[in-house]
């Protein structure tokens, strides 16, 4: 924490000094917008340990922007997405964000990935009045209109996900009667989830265990031993997908077979299948695993969102997976916001367009999208899904049944119904 604070201070100072030099010049038109082009920028891990999966998010977004550009752009302008590799290292994020602002003169930051990464730059971005749209993290730290008026999350938060899980467990007698345990990744990710459960009144766990990201390579023998020895029957897991794979494998080896419930970010089916491989016992452990989600299931190829985004992504030569899907989806939402901001595009105009029109934006999300003058929550809930024996996530519950919750406040999630609008014509804004 200390080093982080020092880093933040140091960077704020540097960026602040730079801002003083440029402040006077930014009057006439906002940076990054010409008659023919809108330049936006993102920071994301393209290389390094965190890059598997994550590197596909910006690629998926770029595929969608290329598609829009080919179809005439947005209000006559093409979108130019500048992608900077920060290797998931917050110090590098600072450098790369400075490059985006000072060299590339971006109009907006879009889809910046990683909680710690974005915390390192979010103050400065807001101080400079740069729209900071659809941060790619489930941390609820960025839903703060007073502190970060220019920052707009998209991903439904981990805290909301925990409240959804709590509600689902409570309402399902078979789960409610089980001895439940909590296994989480150390750091903000796990803490956010823990706070979500606590605020929903879920404070009594039969056992808890945690892991550090660096421990994934060693297996989870000690943690699984503790959970098993405590007699856990339902294990709620908040960790990354590679950790889920190792967890299932270790548990299968130790003949520990609880009911699993895994966070949406810890259960990307393609990555999971790659790690689990063809080991039958581990594959068996995957079947029946609960996992919340908020987009139309990727395997639902009959859905117009899924089929059209799949076409766009694959036309760009990219693999079709959750990450490219997610990237293309937020790019679609941003394009609608840019269009709504009108031909005379300004930063303030984009913020207003988001606040006024977010509820009308279409996307593959099946939960309400909330951005108003008083709330920057983004997506507000999840549906509950479950893995079938073929390794696909099946949506549970009545048609269009979802669970919604706010980031703040101590209530459980509520059951709701939400029928998303169909995509716009040809998926264009």
């Amino acid at each position, binding site marked *: 924490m200390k080093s982080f604070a020092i880093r933040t201070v140091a960077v704020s100072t540097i960026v602040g000094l730079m801002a003083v030099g440029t402040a006077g010049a930014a009057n006439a038109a906002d940076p990054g917008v010409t008659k023919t082009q809108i330049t936006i920028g993102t920071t994301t891990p393209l290389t390094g340990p965190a890059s598997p999966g994550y590197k596909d998010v910006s690629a998926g977004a770029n595929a969608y922007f290329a598609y829009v550009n080919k179809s005439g752009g947005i209000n006559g302008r093409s979108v130019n997405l500048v992608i900077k590799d920060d290797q998931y290292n917050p110090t590098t994020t600072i450098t790369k964000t400075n490059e985006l602002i000072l060299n590339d003169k971006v109009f907006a930051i879009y889809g910046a990935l990683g909680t710690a990464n974005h915390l390192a730059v979010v103050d400065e971005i807001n101080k400079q009045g740069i729209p900071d749209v659809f941060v790619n993290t489930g941390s609820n730290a960025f839903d703060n209109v007073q502190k970060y008026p220019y920052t707009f999350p998209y991903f439904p938060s981990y805290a909301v996900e925990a409240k959804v899980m709590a509600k689902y467990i409570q309402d399902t007698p078979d789960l409610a009667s089980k001895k439940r345990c909590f296994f989480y990744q150390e750091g903000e990710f796990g803490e956010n989830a823990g706070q979500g459960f606590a605020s929903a009144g879920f404070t009594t766990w039969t056992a808890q265990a945690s892991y550090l990201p660096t421990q994934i390579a060693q297996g989870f023998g000690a943690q699984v031993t503790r959970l098993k020895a405590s007699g856990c029957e339902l294990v709620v897991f908040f960790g990354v997908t590679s950790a889920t794979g190792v967890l299932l494998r270790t548990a299968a080896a*130790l003949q520990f077979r609880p009911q699993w419930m895994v966070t949406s970010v810890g259960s990307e089916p393609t990555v999971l299948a790659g790690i689990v*491989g063809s080991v039958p016992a581990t594959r068996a452990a995957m079947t029946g695993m609960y996992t919340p989600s908020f987009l139309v299931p990727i395997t639902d190829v009959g859905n117009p969102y899924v089929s059209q985004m799949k076409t766009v992504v694959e036309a760009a030569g990219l693999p079709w997976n959750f990450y490219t899907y997610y990237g293309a989806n937020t790019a679609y939402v941003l394009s609608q916001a840019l269009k709504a901001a009108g031909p005379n595009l300004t930063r303030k105009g984009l913020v207003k367009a988001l606040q006024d029109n977010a509820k009308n934006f279409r996307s593959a999300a099946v939960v309400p999208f909330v951005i108003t003058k008083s709330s920057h929550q983004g997506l507000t809930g999840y549906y509950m899904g479950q893995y079938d024996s073929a390794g696909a996530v099946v949506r549970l519950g009545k048609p269009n049944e979802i669970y919604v919750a706010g980031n703040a406040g101590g209530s459980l999630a509520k059951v709701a119904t939400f029928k998303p609008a169909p995509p716009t014509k040809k998926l264009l804004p």
Partner: protein
Amino acid sequence: MGSFLDYFLGGIANGAVIALMALALVLVWRSTRVVNFAQVGQAMFTSFIALTAVNITGSWLIGLIVGIIAGGILGFIVHVLVMRPVRRADASGAIIATFGVLIALQSLAAMIWTAEPRAYPTPIEYAGLTIFGRVVPLTGYDVFVFIVMIVLVLFLTILLTKTKLGLSMRASAFNPEVARLSGVRVSRMLAIGWIIAGMVGAVAGVLIAPISSLSPNTFDIFLVFAFTAAVIGGLDSLVGAVAFGIGTGLILSLVTGYSDASNAPIVALILLALNLWFKPDGAFSHHKARSV
């Protein structure tokens, strides 16, 4: 008590792979007097080659053999292309060069095989053994790893202490000038040291990969723990590396089991610091303190 036994056995299983990697570090040190931080990178790279062979042939054993050969070749390449040119630099120059090799290998592996983690098969079913009617966190595979480790230590100890080749290698590393005057072909001995260490590292890699998954960065954490074990063990001692490799695994398992996962690496580093403070020679070392 049941849990203690579980943490204990799980810790030994964890420790065996740390010990294997520590062995490779000690080998390079003994035969070249360089701490090779690229060791985990070499092991990762050759594990990818081995996995490719497994996927083509369907045979775990052929994968291992291909991996060992690749490990030897890669060790030789690192020696010739990187370490020999920097041999006139001071010790820190050589160490920094090994870091460069590590980063280069990780990038190269990501370019060839992508950074997606993938499963590595085991020759024996990865399932916990049943002891006194209960399943313990020690799999048949872990026992296999343990046996391989013991065989390797015996083989390497005999090679280094009982053969002329071993004597020449140690002499070349310890005092190249004197060794050369005594008729030892020093450059060849250094190359052989890198080759053997590369082969041992390759065995370690192939055995570690199935525990979680294989990706360009999976082995990074083993560098920290293997280095800890090797240093506490005295850097010179094969038995020390193995003993403290297993000890490190035990501590990590017990600390994670009884307190909190986040305390495990801290405890390992505290032990390393205490050791360097009180017994900088390392517990099993016969030599005078290293001057750093």
